[in-house]
């Protein structure tokens, strides 16, 4: 990582302390504690229903946690609306099902939040949007509608849309799970480039090649708790927990 030798790396970007989340009476997160520093790329994995999505969705308050603390870039997540707004414009998110706005062109999808939330002038927003499309490799698709794009292209637009807000943190919830195999690579390449630029990233994924080559740390979830965390090298070669071994043996 290019950013790893900067002093900023030690800065804490996300701090979770004993985070609990219930859906009704269902206990989905049972005391999650971890700290993610600036520029770190963290892969979250684990069985279906283990709380991976719930965990990353609490970080930008798409889900509200009921106990414990989450501090994102020094801002504590509380019910204070201003805090939530501040967090949301600093944390970008990419979803499994892209969730592009089908009634807006690709360019308008990307420009929407900069124009309406950041209140940028139109030409600035457009310039940034075009350079982001350039960056994810599809500037020629700018005036099309999302429905006219392939899945891989749509997901790259979704990445550009999140980046347009110039977030300090990017969350990815299974960004390649809805894609045909031949499109997975183009999306992973865009994410890899982003990681190399020093972005702090949390990626829920079962793409173990990506985890091994790009991530600094891997977190294994099961039944609402962190079972194990460590460097990709340790997780793949020397897992400490039986559950991790079992799970990895099933997916690799």
């Amino acid at each position, binding site marked *: 990582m290019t950013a790893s030798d900067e002093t900023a790396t030690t800065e804490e970007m996300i701090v979770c302390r004993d985070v609990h989340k219930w859906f009704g009476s269902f206990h989905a997160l049972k005391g999650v504690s971890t700290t993610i520093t600036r520029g770190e790329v963290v892969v979250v994995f684990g069985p279906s229903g283990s709380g991976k999505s719930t965990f990353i969705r609490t970080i930008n308050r798409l889900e509200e946690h009921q106990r414990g603390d989450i501090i994102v870039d020094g801002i504590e997540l509380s019910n204070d609306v201003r805090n939530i707004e501040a967090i949301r414009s600093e944390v970008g998110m990419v979803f499994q099902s892209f969730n592009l706005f089908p009634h807006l062109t690709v360019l308008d999808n990307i420009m929407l939040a900069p124009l309406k*939330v950041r209140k940028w002038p139109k030409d600035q927003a457009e310039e940034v949007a075009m350079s982001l499309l350039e960056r994810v490799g599809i500037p020629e698709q700018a005036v099309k509608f999302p429905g006219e794009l392939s899945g891989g292209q749509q997901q790259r637009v979704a990445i550009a849309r999140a980046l347009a807000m110039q977030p300090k943190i990017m969350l990815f919830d299974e960004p390649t799970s809805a894609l045909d195999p031949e499109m997975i690579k183009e999306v992973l390449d865009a994410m890899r480039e982003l990681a190399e630029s020093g972005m702090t990233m949390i990626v829920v994924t079962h793409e173990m090649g990506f985890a091994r080559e790009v991530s600094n740390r891997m977190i294994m979830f099961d039944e609402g708790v962190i079972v194990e965390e460590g460097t990709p090298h340790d997780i793949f070669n020397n897992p400490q927990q039986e559950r991790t071994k079992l799970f990895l043996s099933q997916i690799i």
Partner: protein
Amino acid sequence: MMTDNGDITTASVIAPPRSEVGVIGWLRTNLFSTWYDTTMTVISLVVVVWLMWFGLTWAFGDAEWRVIGTLGGQFIIGQFNTESACPGQNCFWRPQVGLLLATIVLGMAWGVAGGGTAKKVALAVAVVAAVMSLIPYSFERMGMDVRILLVANIPAVFLGLAITRYTPWREVKHVAIVGVASFLLTLFLLRGVEGLPGMHPVSVIHWGGLMLNVLLAVAGIVLSLPIGIGLALGRRSQLPVVKLLCVAFIEIFRGVPLITLLFMSQVLVPLAFPENFPQNSLFRAAVVITLFSSAYMAENIRGGLQALHPGQAEAARALGLSGWQITFLISLPQAIRNVIPAIVGQFIALFKDTSLVYIIGMLDVVEIGRAFIQGNPEYLPSARELFIFLAIVFWIFTYGMSYVSRRVEDHLRVGTR
């Protein structure tokens, strides 16, 4: 199409099988492909030819269309220009100026849309108006002034077009502003003021004919969409009081027949407004028709909102958009798009329902005809011609709406999912 891959290029030039192309091919595949297709085609053909033969021989032979000519301008403006409504003056020019304002707005819409359906509608209205100036009445029944103002609709369309070409007023919002201003100005012109020549005040009970139907429909259409949106959002609100009020409003207005509401309006609308608020039967009818239509509109839009994928609002929230921004920039535009057919169906129903104002003593285009036949029994045999004529008039308007809506849908479908 053209690729540097030789195989694909060769493959793409293979012609489709002969029988599938051209008129003969189309007929063969669509009408005569099996023996029962052929039977159905022949039977349908016989029925269509027989109906057309019957219809045309009647329309151009036995039918007695004189009643249409006798009523003439009354179909358009009702009793507006009669001696009792506008004594000693000619007031026909006032509704005519209203029409001219409408064609100017249509011309602007053409300019803003850059042609297409807006152009067709604008030209159709102007040409129909202009052609009406050629109606072979004596000048006593239809003066030169009336005819000139009708022909003026053609330049009026181009005036509207020119406004969008040569002035900065060339956006959708400008058309909306000019449209609303024209509508209010038309109401003012129709109402009149004391003391000005040609502006003798005309009581709304004399406003009638197609003009009345169109005024009520335009007010209802323009207002019921935003009110319906408000009700739909209110019904989904998290505030229990707001939600309850909206549900109650929708269920009450949907649960009572419009005729009943129109009767009740004479009693209830006065209660809802301050005592010195200027009211009349037209105003009450407009309020009731608009609210009735809004209740249905609200449910159409709620259906559209319900059908949206939750990921849409979620993605917008993750980008930091506020609740209102999500509603107005993400949810509503998609919801409305998805229910355009239902919305236009509601507009069409509203237009037809404007006829019901006869119940509170207003002479809409249908009632003009019916009352005339009742008052002049010698025309009783012509009732058939009269009502066929009225049916055609309504059909032209409603078909126009449905045509425009289909074009709008085609236009919006580009690339959406």
